[in-house]
């Protein structure tokens, strides 16, 4: 039935299709048009949202991009109105950029290279107020990856180090010293806290126990009479005039038995000596430990009484800690960011990834660059212009006049043959900042990649800058003019050296102190220090990097206080030393005496016994040697006698044989004569 149905259906013969799929042209064209429309209508806004999202995630605060335009035909991009919120102060922006624009070269793009002839970054400004408060990313929950934890740890460590390393209240301690106080009562209270005293007590008990043990062991050692008895036995052993070989054998066996007995006693003495040496070594170490503990106790007492260090470095560190801490916090923030995002081959990341099953990563192969001179490298930004112009119509404008140029940023400096150079200069009159000068050189053409930067500011105003505020002293720069110059060198992206030289001119200080003497000294010092400096210097391998601060102000203050306070410091130090000596030294000497007594007694005893044992051993050896030589002499004599006898007999035998031969010869001759008839 089905067959009849199919046969009855009149099927049109299918038109044979050619090798080309003409029917696909229209759908393809529609798809291309749709893609084109997407790029024309929506791509820019999507890119803008993406940039804002990525910026927010990376910086941890809201990032706004007001306009983003791309052009396919010009291969260009223009981003206008970039605002990066300051996460610590969301009402302000960290950075505002008026416009960034650049276009790629189609000629290079067709060669899969990215070459930008000229890029521009315009209207840069810092710390501008925002129209509305920026969104700040909330802190991430505890589930953080090892890398971030490491970065945070580094940041915290650096901040903590800056906080605590020079947190000693130098001026507070100086003030206390100058006021003066009774230390002797305080010292009495501390008597029980001396660790060395406790240690010595324990050591003395152990030493007494040891002394007792040693006395017992020395008593058990072989006595001189025992060695004498062995010697007497040896003397009785026959060592010459042997008649039979059995006698010799007997004598030797006897001597050997006495020697074995003696050796056993010698071994016993030696083992005791070794044990004693070991014990003595341990005792010496214990004494050494006590001595170092005494030193430590002196140091602890000094810190308890807060003896200030009147050295320029500590003073400079304390003085400029408040001034530099905000900058260090910023440096550490960026250091942590660098550590977080830098590729592992640049930064040695010690985090150990968790072990999990994963497929083999597909090999990347080796990518060769067949570059030639004057060809395009994979990326090349030939020139980037940076500018920021002061808005003269707005008196509150925080913009400044900035002008800069970056040349030859590239992935392959060998192809372009040029290092990357950057220079920015300008000023911010509203902020009283003049003569900003930044220069960078990045040279990757040699074996060691080197980044050199210099940054200087000719002058910047400082007003009411607090440098110290403690219960004892408050100190600030009422007004000053600062100047800055910094040099940075980064070798192979790891070895960093940095030097920042800050100069302060026309400084007006404001000092108040609880102690009027201290205030007087400081006012006198500062009167002379209208010009001062602060030098921060550091060298290290990233991410480990510390800055050291010095200042001539520290030296001046040191000199100011030295006369007044050094005598007092020395007096207190002497008091502490005397106290320690009185409390401890007597006990220490007693212990040392005991140790020496034990040493001399035990050593003398052991030496005596050893000498006796050795003497008897020598005697036994002599006996054996004597017996041996006697036997040898006798054997040689017997040998000679036997030899002479043998020679005599041999001669007799020879003569006998000769005579017999001659007789026989004569007999034969006679017989022959008879036969021949002679």
């Amino acid at each position, binding site marked *: 039935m089905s067959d009849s149905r199919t046969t009855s259906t009149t099927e049109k013969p299918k038109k044979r299709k050619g*090798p080309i799929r003409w029917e696909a042209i229209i759908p393809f064209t529609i798809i291309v048009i749709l893609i084109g429309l997407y790029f024309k209508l929506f791509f820019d806004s999507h890119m803008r949202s993406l940039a804002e999202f990525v910026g927010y995630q990376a910086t941890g605060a809201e990032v706004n991009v007001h306009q983003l335009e791309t052009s396919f035909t010009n291969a260009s991009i223009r981003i206008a109105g970039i605002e990066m919120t300051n996460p610590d102060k969301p009402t302000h922006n960290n950075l505002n950029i008026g416009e960034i624009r650049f276009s790629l070269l189609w000629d290079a793009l067709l060669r*899969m290279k990215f070459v930008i002839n000229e890029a521009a970054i315009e209207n840069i400004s810092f710390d501008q107020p925002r129209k509305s408060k920026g969104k700040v990313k909330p802190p991430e929950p505890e589930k953080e990856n090892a890398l971030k934890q490491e970065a945070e740890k580094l940041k915290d460590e650096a901040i903590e180090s800056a906080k605590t390393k020079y947190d000693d209240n130098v001026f507070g301690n100086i003030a206390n010293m100058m006021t003066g106080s009774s230390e002797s009562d305080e010292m009495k209270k501390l008597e029980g806290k001396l660790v060395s005293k406790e240690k010595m007590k324990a050591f003395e008990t152990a030493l007494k126990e040891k002394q007792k043990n040693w006395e017992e062991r020395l008593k058990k050692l072989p006595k001189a009479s025992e060695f004498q008895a062995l010697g007497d036995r040896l003397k009785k052993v026959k060592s010459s005039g042997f008649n039979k070989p059995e006698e010799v054998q007997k004598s030797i066996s006897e001597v050997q038995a006495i020697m074995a007995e003696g050796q056993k006693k010698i071994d016993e003495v030696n083992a005791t000596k070794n044990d004693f040496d070991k014990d003595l070594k341990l005792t010496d170490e214990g004494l050494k430990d006590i001595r170092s503990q005494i030193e430590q106790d002196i140091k602890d007492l000094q810190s308890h009484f807060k003896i200030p260090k009147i050295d320029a470095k500590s003073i400079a560190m304390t003085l400029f800690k408040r001034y530099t801490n905000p900058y260090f916090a910023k440096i550490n923030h960026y250091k942590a960011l660098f550590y977080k995002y830098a590729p592992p081959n640049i930064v040695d990341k010690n985090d150990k990834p968790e072990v999990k099953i994963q497929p083999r990563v*597909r090999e*990347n*192969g080796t*990518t*060769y660059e*067949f570059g030639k001179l004057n060809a395009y490298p994979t990326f090349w930004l030939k020139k980037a212009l940076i500018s920021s112009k002061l808005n003269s119509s707005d008196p509150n404008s925080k913009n400044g006049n900035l002008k800069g140029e970056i040349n030859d940023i590239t992935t392959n400096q060998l192809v372009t043959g040029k290092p990357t150079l950057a220079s920015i200069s300008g000023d911010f009159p509203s902020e009283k900042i003049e003569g900003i000068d930044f220069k960078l050189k990045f040279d990757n053409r040699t074996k060691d990649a080197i980044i050199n930067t210099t940054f200087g500011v000719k002058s910047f105003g400082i007003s009411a800058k607090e440098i110290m505020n403690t219960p004892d002293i408050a100190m600030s720069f009422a007004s000053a003019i600062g100047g800055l110059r910094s040099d940075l060198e980064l070798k192979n992206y790891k070895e960093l050296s940095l030097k920042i030289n800050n100069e302060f001119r026309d400084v007006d200080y404001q000092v108040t102190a609880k102690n009027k003497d201290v205030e007087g000294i400081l006012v006198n010092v500062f009167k002379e220090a209208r010009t001062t400096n602060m030098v921060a210097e550091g060298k290290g391998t990233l991410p480990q990097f510390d800055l050291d601060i010095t200042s001539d102000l520290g030296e001046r203050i040191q000199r100011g206080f030295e006369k007044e306070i050094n005598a007092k410091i020395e007096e207190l130090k002497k008091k502490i030393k005397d106290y320690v000596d009185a409390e401890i030294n007597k006990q220490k000497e007693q212990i040392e005496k005991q140790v020496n007594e034990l040493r001399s007694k035990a050593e003398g005893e052991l030496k005596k016994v050893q000498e006796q044992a050795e003497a008897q051993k020598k005697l036994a050896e002599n006996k054996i040697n004597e017996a041996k030589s006697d036997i040898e002499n006798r054997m040689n004599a017997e040998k000679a006698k036997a030899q002479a006898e043998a020679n005599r007999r041999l001669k007799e035998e020879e003569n006998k044989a000769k005579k017999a031969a001659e007789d026989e010869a004569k007999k034969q001759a006679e017989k022959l004569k008879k036969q021949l008839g002679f």
Partner: protein
Amino acid sequence: MTLIFKQLFNFLKMLNSDTGHNQLAAGLACGLILGFAPFFSLQTVLVLALIFVFRIQMGAAFLAAFFFKFVAYLADPVTHELGKAVLENPSLRDLFVDMYNMPILPFTRFNNSIVMGSLVLSLILAPFMFFVFRALIIKYRILVVDRFKSTKAWKAFKATTIYNWYSKYDALYG
């Protein structure tokens, strides 16, 4: 996704029909090149354009590309060595320098050892494999499809209404 599935069904349908063995074999051979080439490269675009413009069976090409991706993955160490040997050949050095600095050609990513090795290997294998696939398809049709069609079970299924409805739908909508 629907388009890919449709192409795969078409591939199975065509494989079990009597026609189009050249289209199928060409599709499989193109799939081989696709499988060995990196996804973002000029050669992938060119092969896709060939498949799209000419009547090459797309399902066969995609299926083969999927399969040969695994083969290429396993052959990476071999292709790396092969590509390295080609790229480091001193006599070809000037040619590669010119190619590297020419427009369009760098999009093939020929300067990567694995890409170069895979390209060389797939270009050598593709023509041979075309004839091998063609012979296998013909063999399959004789040994498997014809025998299956002559079984009673298939004949019984062909007589059912469901099959009639399906063949009607297939004739109308393909």
